């Protein structure tokens, strides 16, 4: 596509002082780019920590256990139902997406190899990662919620649809790193293909798969759009995965952010801190597994 001959030749004969000056300027621009992106990151984390800690930890542990006040202008704690909801929805989504995604990747790498069909599936999985989360939410609304009503499980399905292609991609990448002679050794001992996959290939790739799945979970736990249409907005604790309206931290932050009452906004910051801590913790655990893969290799 890009012909290396056709590109405009660099003129290395320009005045050396100008060339080094240009080099310095562009180095400055690169560092500047990093500063530009660091500023909002620090600003956002600072807002979340300073305002969130005030709201969430001033009323410890009530903030994490009490129900959400029905009258949003009243100050006071309560994000318990949303925290439980987020954990339920995310756990449900993980239970759906991880086995299916790992199996899908096993097919792509261990069975299908380079057939036309696997190439199509692999390509569409990449495309599927780009489907907006709100579209997934509405899809599950049409397929599930319109029939069975609000439940945490509806949110799990929507979230699992978002996680599935990510899990497939991460798992396939890890399966590629498993040396072929491990498989051949297993076959030589007379194992069938499924046995080889379950007892040799997957255990060998496990730390990497865990890491990839955890990153997908961390990303999904913060999703809001797919939950708006599927889980409802309960203010009381609902520990059931399959029945009854539920709530989630992200969805509750969205509701409270549009409120003009200080008390509701405070609760939103507290919920945001909780959610950020949750996603960062999962990401950190994933890092531990990634490090294990790196040292093993």
């Amino acid at each position, binding site marked *: 596509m890009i012909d290396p001959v056709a590109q405009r030749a660099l003129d290395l004969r320009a005045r050396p002082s100008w060339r080094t000056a240009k080099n310095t300027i562009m180095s400055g621009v690169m560092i500047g780019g990093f500063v530009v992106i660091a500023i909002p990151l620090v600003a*956002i984390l600072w807002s979340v920590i300073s305002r969130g800690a005030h709201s969430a930890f001033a009323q410890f542990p009530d903030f994490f256990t009490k129900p959400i006040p029905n009258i949003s202008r009243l100050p006071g704690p309560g994000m318990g139902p949303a925290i439980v909801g987020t954990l339920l929805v995310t756990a449900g989504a993980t239970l759906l997406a991880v086995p299916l995604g790992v199996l899908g990747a096993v097919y792509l790498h*261990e*069975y*299908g190899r380079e057939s036309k069909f696997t190439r199509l599936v692999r390509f569409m999985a990449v495309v*599927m990662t780009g*489907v907006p989360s709100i579209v997934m939410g*509405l899809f599950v609304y049409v397929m599930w919620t319109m029939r069975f009503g609000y439940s945490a499980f509806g949110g799990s399905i929507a979230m699992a649809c978002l996680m599935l292609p990510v899990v497939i991609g991460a798992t396939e990448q890890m399966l590629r790193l498993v040396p072929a002679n491990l498989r051949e050794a297993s076959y030589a001992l*007379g194992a069938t293909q499924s046995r080889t996959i379950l007892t040799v290939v997957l255990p060998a790739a496990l730390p990497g798969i865990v890491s990839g799945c955890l990153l997908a979970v961390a990303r999904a736990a913060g999703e*809001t759009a797919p939950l708006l249409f599927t889980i409802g907005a309960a203010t009381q604790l609902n520990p059931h995965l399959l029945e009854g309206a539920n709530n989630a931290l992200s969805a509750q932050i969205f509701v409270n952010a549009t409120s003009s009452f200080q008390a509701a906004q405070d609760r939103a910051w507290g919920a945001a801190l909780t959610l*950020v801590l949750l996603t960062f913790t999962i990401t950190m655990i994933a890092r531990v597994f990634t490090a294990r893969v790196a040292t093993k290799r």
Partner: protein
Amino acid sequence: MAEQPHVDLSGSRDTADRAFSWLAIAAATLVLLILGLIAVTMTNRASGVFGKMGFEFFTSKRWAPPEGEFGALSFIWGTIYTSTIAIVIAVPVSLAVALFITQLAPRRLKMPLVYVLDLLAVVPSVVFGLWGVLTLAQPIQGVYTHIHNAVAGIPIVRSIFGDTPQGRSFMTAGIILAIMITPIITSLAREVIETTPANEKEAAYALGATRWEMIRGSIIPHSKGGIVGAVMLGLGRAMGETIAVALVIGASIGQISANVFSSGNSMPAVIANEWGEADDIHKSGLIALAVVLFAITIIVNVVASSIVRRSMARSRGARS
């Protein structure tokens, strides 16, 4: 990464073995099934609105659900405009950061920097939105006013950075989107840049090139295709982003304006904002918007992934 030739040593297959392979095929097919079902069921649910509005759905900007009028033009405009602003801001920053990490940063700093960017990528979008609407929107209105006053004398620029700046506007949405897609573009661009063969870089240095001239002469020509793909993937993400945009875009209906400081609405944002109060036909209208959004993002992503894949394959070929 050369694929090893597949040697089938598995021999005779019992029932359990065959069942497992069918399970795996079913799981892989699920990807195609879900994408197909999204297209069919949602188009089906929205067919009433599409049938009634016809092509006017795309050309009318009158959005009045109680009267059964669904014109999506202003939302399509808002989606395109905010994501364009985001790309204009994010691309130079991402490239600078990607080059900084791969070429400039000391080895010891490299991994921590990558970690920081990854953390930025897992901050939930609703947190960006919360920060945008409660912390950023108010002070930035003053900045907008300054910018507007500064360019008031220049003809075309004046109408882009127009008057009566709003804190919740296309521009604020674009800025938030830019912050959100920068880590995505950066990490993809970094991967592409790192595939540049060492001998091409060394050749540039051997000719006496400075570091910047090496980047211009070796890295950029080599990575151009991959970077274009990365930017398009970022664009797809920006167009589909819902919650952050819904909170900071201002949610005004029927606004088609080139003024980046005026409030507007985008397709995903209007769905999120209006869903709560929508009746049945209104919901069909919103689902129709989602169908359009789905189609656009699928096209963008198909093009982007083919570009990335092709450029990755080429650079792999160049290396071996």
